[in-house]
């Protein structure tokens, strides 16, 4: 059985059309489609998902604080999207390769990013915050949707080699309007590439509501490209993990691409440069506060008698430590010397640039000895 749906809702936002395992009040619901994919997830694993979400929220808050204090040029918060990012990313295997957008702090966290990796790019020290090779995550992508094609190309390579790997790409609801994302789905389908598309439908593309991008549930588009899709409650970490396992299994088994729309909500501003009070109302925000992904899992664990004081204090301490390390890494970053602006433009010598480099070096050298 392939848990494939083609939603038929009237609007792009109908939340009841999303698959879930944990209801907003933390009660567990049977889901014949998703349950088999998380049958092995015990209380200890749930606590570790909870821990990851808490740490991610703390990293995110620290990012906002660092930006407010002038340490970062910009930050793209992901508060509210912890379940989508942690639930899906924790299902990805180490050998898989991820092509994210700028908002996937939780995904690079789950892939093992170092504290400085979260901020290096936003601080303006380097073009990429992390080493793509070690994390097996491409640099965070700012051009909306461009990375989805990269994932498909990468997946085509995987397919040619018959490797046991999958490429995964993340993007937002606004991105689904881009040509590149639609081209990526066509190419993925044409070549049956082992790629998983994860749309984080967080309801807003800066100030544009999702209904402006799509008058139909986004997951409903994928089947039109020949790609099976699932629409899950993105604030339900278990559902996100289950959906991702389904999608990864599907791609790994050689059955081609799979698509997930995780219906979630961006609680904060689009970036630290944004003022969401100009375009969305407090009532909407409030309704999503009641769907908080972390609180939801906590309710479940508490009811099951699995939320120990020890776990809570250990988690809090771990989150504080990561934030502290992140701050220290950020404040301790040393900007490279001026000549570094020329580094890495080309892989091989380029006489035009080499000449400019030489001219600039001579210019800088002219200050030496000048009193």
């Amino acid at each position, binding site marked *: 059985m392939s848990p494939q749906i083609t939603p038929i809702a009237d609007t792009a936002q109908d939340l009841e059309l999303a698959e879930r395992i944990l209801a907003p009040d933390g009660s567990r619901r049977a889901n014949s489609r998703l349950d088999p994919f998380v049958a092995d997830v015990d209380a200890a694993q749930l606590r570790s998902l909870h821990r990851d979400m808490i740490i991610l929220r703390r990293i995110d808050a620290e990012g906002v604080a660092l930006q407010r204090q002038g340490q970062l040029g910009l930050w793209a918060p992901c508060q509210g999207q912890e379940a989508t990012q942690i639930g899906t990313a924790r299902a990805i295997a180490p050998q898989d390769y991820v092509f994210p957008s700028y908002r996937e702090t939780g995904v690079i966290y789950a892939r093992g990013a170092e504290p400085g990796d979260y901020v290096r790019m936003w601080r303006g020290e380097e073009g990429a915050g992390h080493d793509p090779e070690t994390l097996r995550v491409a640099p965070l992508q700012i051009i909306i949707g461009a990375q989805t094609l*990269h994932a498909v190309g990468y997946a085509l*390579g995987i397919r040619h080699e018959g490797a046991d790997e999958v490429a995964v790409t993340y993007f937002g609801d606004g991105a689904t309007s881009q040509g590149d994302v639609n081209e990526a789905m066509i190419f993925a389908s044409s070549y049956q590439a082992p790629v998983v598309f994860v749309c984080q439908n967080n309801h807003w593309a800066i100030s544009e509501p999702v209904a402006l991008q799509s008058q139909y549930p986004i997951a409903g588009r994928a089947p039109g490209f020949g790609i099976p899709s699932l629409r899950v409650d993105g604030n339900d970490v278990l559902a996100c993990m289950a959906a991702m396992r389904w999608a990864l299994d599907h791609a790994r088994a050689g059955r081609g691409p799979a698509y997930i729309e995780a219906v979630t909500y961006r609680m904060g501003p689009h970036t630290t440069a944004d003022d969401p009070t100009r375009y969305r109302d407090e009532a909407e925000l409030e309704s999503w506060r009641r769907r908080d992904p972390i609180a939801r899992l906590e309710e479940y664990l508490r009811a099951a008698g699995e939320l120990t004081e020890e776990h809570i204090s250990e988690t809090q301490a771990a989150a504080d430590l990561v934030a502290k390390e992140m701050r220290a890494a950020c404040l301790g970053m040393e900007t490279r010397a001026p000549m570094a602006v020329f580094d890495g433009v080309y892989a091989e010598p*380029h006489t035009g640039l080499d000449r400019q480099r030489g001219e600039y070096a001579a210019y800088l050298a002219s200050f030496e000895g000048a009193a």
Partner: protein
Amino acid sequence: MTEVTLGKALGAGLRQAMRDDDKVVLLGEDIGKLGGVFRITDGLLEEFGAARVIDTPLAESGIVGMAVGLAFRGYRPVVEIQFDGFVYPAFDQIVAQVAKLHYRTQGRVKMPITIRIPWAGGIGAAEHHSESPEAYFVHTAGLRVVAVSNPEDAYRSLRQAIASDDPVVFFEPKRLYHHKGDVDLEGSLADAPPMGLARVVRPGTDATLITYGAMVTTALQAADAAEDEGISLEVIDLRSLSPVDYDSVAASVRKTGRVVVAHEASREAGVAAEVIASITERCFEYLESAPLRVTGHDIPYPPAKLEKYHLPDLDRLLDAVDRVLDRPNSLTGADV
């Protein structure tokens, strides 16, 4: 040496590159069974199979974007854009992704992608089939830009472009696809002059005529005609537009002191402007007259019946030569 057309030389270059390195894969519209609309990839599908000669859906951004992903995975994709005017949908992927990833990642991700573009006018084509977009790419750091003008160069430069760890936008003058020339098909890349070098196609002493692509042919015709009038023109084929080989250019300018730069592309902020600015920076004191440009007009590429008025021809080149030599010319008597 074997006499082949420029088109066949390109096909032979692709074949050799694919034999040399199994990470080389081709992507493009109609490049499989059809062999490309210009038949450059003819026979490659049979030899290398559909996993390496990949017919793609009709989406240029998709083609280049997928090549980026393949490069992430260690492949050397060679992309065919069907016609020059269709590269624009892929512009974002080329200038924002292909060109930048090496820099953004401090060299940890390489983009050894070759983007082949059948290029420029003079074949009486339909709209969007005769464009000269090279300046957009020359202006983009992180890309190399090559424009070939003869079969030997096409064969060699294409293999060099594919072997390069940098992305190369590779312009093929479609007007010359059927032109024949001798090619050393056995030659090893190690012995060949590097991709970035300009070439003195014809030595001369009175003025330097600098150009590239199909205009090299026109420039040589102009040099022949000038010789009849007792003028000795040096003709330089830039071959590489990023980087430009200014050492060779400057050596020639120091010898002749007079310069005309010509291209089919329109003038404003074009390659000729850059070349002349660089010449004046480097060897102003050797110049005996102001360098001149002969270019296409600053107009959208005109309808086929009018393109002969747009493309610089022999006479426009010679007129500019007369001007840099202070001989009677179209502006003589005009107040400029």
